[in-house]
């Protein structure tokens, strides 16, 4: 009763593709989860480059006080588009992309549960993103034609209402995200359904890779948190075009209601973004420590509890709004509570490394940096949960530093790790270790220069979303350092992109299992054939390949 066959039969030799139209059609019309996954990730990387340039321009403007390189109108559009793009057009597609690619492979299935819904979701996401960016050309704003939305990525009312945001720039923000959101929702439905109904024989829920568990939690959060955003945006659209009064303070409407609805989406959203980072780390750290993940069940329980608690903390974004003392105390306490399961996960990762034989390949380098940086991010989060401290620091550069530490220091570093780790599986080619290390060190140095420093500006009283600042506040040197860090980060990203391009030149074959890993995706060829597995596998433990490689000491004896 072989658990798994050896490497799946290689796909039959391809006939010479008859022209680029054939290839194009193959990709455009595909419903295959692997191609869609790659398309999601690639689109995310493209938007990442664009949003990164938007940030670079802003940092150029802010490098010096009283700078007039960029007008306030343009600056306000830049930070709006930067934030909106990074959350919805970079973060979401990349995590859905990896989920799409890996879940069927990890559970021994041939595709996702709803392949056509999958394809529809991707194209909705892409259309929404393109619609948002079309605003740069096609929309009319407060100052004439050709203006992107400029109300911030959270578009607080009344600023985003018709009276203060004339033209249709804000409507591009609403519609772009709304349409893109359908893509995310369909991705969530697919991921949960696939994981719950299509696992291979022997794979109970308790034998799924942690990656799959975490993507299930992420997907549930998406289903619960994205519709409120849609609802709020529809309300705003009704206000703007049908004369509705949802946020019309002159009619008795409540400007803060938008914030409640938005952050009821917005806080789970940031967990939606970071939990996949946990998922990548939970797969990569064990392999490069040569040890099983420490405390699998606790990791699952911690992630599930993070998911629940994440839905109860939203108003910690609103401590300056003037809510009652009891409300402030509740949201402060419950926000600190979420630090407990999060901390447990960090300890479990450390315990996985402890006693291992750590191999410092590029994916592991990014994961180690993630551990320390995410720890810092979590601690600054606790500081912001401390309401009186937050009364000073909310809406300042301290918050900007905090969430970039989470999203870049945490999520992006693990995304880089994930790319270096799974690119070989997706393409059959290894990425250059040398370029990867160069990418890592350049990006790390740049990230630290920019975002560690950035906490100081916040502590010195610099609010966020300002296009310039006066020279007499003592902020200049910190802003200059922050801006200079962009150079190293940009260089790092260039190395990353170069590594990807170069991989197709150097053609170092990856083989099925370049990292000596233990989950099912490594049991099939790189890249996998369209049908994933010649025969669907049957498993007896959480690490089926470990059992194969260590028949004298299989996992199922100890689980």
């Amino acid at each position, binding site marked *: 009763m072989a658990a798994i066959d050896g490497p799946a039969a290689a796909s039959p030799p391809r006939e010479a593709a008859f022209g680029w139209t054939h290839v194009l059609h193959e990709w455009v019309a595909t419903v295959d989860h692997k191609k869609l996954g790659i398309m999601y990730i690639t689109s995310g990387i493209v938007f990442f480059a664009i949003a990164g340039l938007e940030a670079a321009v802003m940092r150029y403007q802010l490098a010096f006080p009283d700078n007039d390189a960029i007008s306030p109108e343009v600056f306000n559009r830049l930070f709006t588009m930067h934030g909106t793009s990074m959350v919805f057009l970079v973060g979401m597609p990349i995590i859905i992309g990896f989920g799409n690619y890996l879940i069927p492979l990890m559970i021994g299935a041939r595709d996702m549960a709803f392949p056509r819904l999958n394809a529809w979701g991707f194209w909705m996401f892409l259309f929404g993103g393109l619609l948002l960016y079309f605003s740069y050309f096609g929309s009319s704003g407060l100052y004439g034609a050709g203006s992107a939305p400029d109300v911030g990525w959270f578009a607080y009312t009344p600023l985003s209402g018709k009276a203060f945001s004339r033209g249709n720039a804000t409507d591009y923000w609403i519609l772009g995200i709304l349409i893109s959101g359908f893509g995310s929702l369909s991705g969530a439905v697919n991921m949960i359904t696939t994981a719950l109904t299509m696992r291979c024989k022997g794979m109970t829920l308790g034998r799924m890779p942690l990656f799959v568990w975490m993507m299930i939690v992420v997907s549930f959060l998406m289903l619960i948190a994205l*519709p409120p955003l849609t609802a709020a945006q529809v309300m705003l659209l009704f206000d703007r075009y049908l004369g509705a009064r949802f946020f019309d303070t002159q009619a008795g409407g409540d400007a803060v209601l938008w914030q409640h609805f938005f952050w009821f989406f917005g806080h789970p959203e940031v967990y939606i973004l970071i939990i996949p980072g946990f998922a990548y780390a939970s797969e990569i750290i064990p392999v490069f420590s040569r040890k099983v993940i420490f405390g699998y069940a606790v990791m699952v329980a911690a992630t599930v509890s993070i998911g629940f608690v994440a839905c109860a903390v939203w108003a910690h974004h609103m401590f300056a709004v003037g809510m009652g003392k009891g409300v402030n105390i509740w949201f402060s306490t419950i926000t600190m509570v979420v630090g407990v399961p999060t901390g447990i996960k960090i300890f479990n990762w450390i315990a996985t490394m402890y006693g291992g034989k750590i191999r410092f390949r590029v994916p592991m380098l990014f994961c180690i940096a993630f551990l320390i940086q995410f720890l810092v991010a979590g601690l600054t989060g606790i500081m912001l949960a401390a309401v009186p401290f937050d009364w000073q620091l909310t809406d300042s550069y301290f918050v900007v530093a905090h969430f970039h530490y989470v999203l870049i220091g945490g999520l992006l570093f693990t995304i880089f790790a994930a790319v270096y780790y799974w690119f070989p599986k997706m393409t059959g080619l290894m990425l250059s270790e040398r370029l990867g290390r160069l990418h890592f060190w350049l990006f790390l140095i740049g990230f630290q220069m920019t975002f560690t420093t950035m906490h100081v500006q916040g502590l010195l009283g610099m609010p966020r979303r300002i296009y310039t600042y006066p020279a007499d506040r003592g902020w200049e040197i910190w802003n200059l350092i922050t801006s200079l860090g962009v150079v190293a980060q940009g260089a790092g990203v260039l190395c990353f992109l170069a590594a990807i391009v170069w991989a197709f030149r150097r053609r170092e074959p990856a083989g099925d299992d370049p990292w000596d890993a233990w989950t099912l995706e490594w049991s099939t060829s790189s890249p996998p054939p369209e049908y994933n597995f010649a025969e669907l596998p049957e498993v007896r433990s959480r690490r089926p390949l470990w059992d194969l490689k260590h028949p004298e000491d299989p996992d199922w004896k100890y689980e």
Partner: protein
Amino acid sequence: MSAASATTTDTATAQGWTRGQVGTLLLILAETSFFAVFIAGYLFYIGKSLSGPRPADVLELPILATICLLSSSGTIVVAVRDLERGHRARFASGLLATILLGGAFLVLTALEWKRLIVEHGLTISTNLFGTTFYSLVGFHAAHVSVGLLIMLLILVLGAFGHVRREHAFRVELFSWYWHFVDVVWIAVGTAVYVIGL
């Protein structure tokens, strides 16, 4: 080595749920979240309108409409069971009854709106009550409309012989959506006609 099915399609797997069932439930979860926000908005703004007609002045209990909609849940349950047993004609008439009852609900809603707009001057922009009432009831009605369109599609496909007993599970999944629409109506009705009055 176990025989590999090409994909897990419509049969329940060892794990107990079919993908259609899970997918439909997840859709309902997302829709619940969506409606919850509109209901929360409605409840939050009760009594806060600065002017204009108040709910107590203009609303009439939608008893007939509610009866129509809720009984349409009954008719669709019967229809699905008939299809499962292969009684396609009875299924078609049950489905038609559901459509008519749902359609009656929409017509009654439209008449109610006409009364409110024409006789009482209540529109979505009149005041907070108008805003929250029309958006909440309107989105519910939109979901009813979508359900009606799907049922019409099934009816037409059935007329051409494409809906047979082996497809009953798909109609059943749709019926879950239809029941959900009914449950939402109960929630909407409670918020608007019980709590709000």
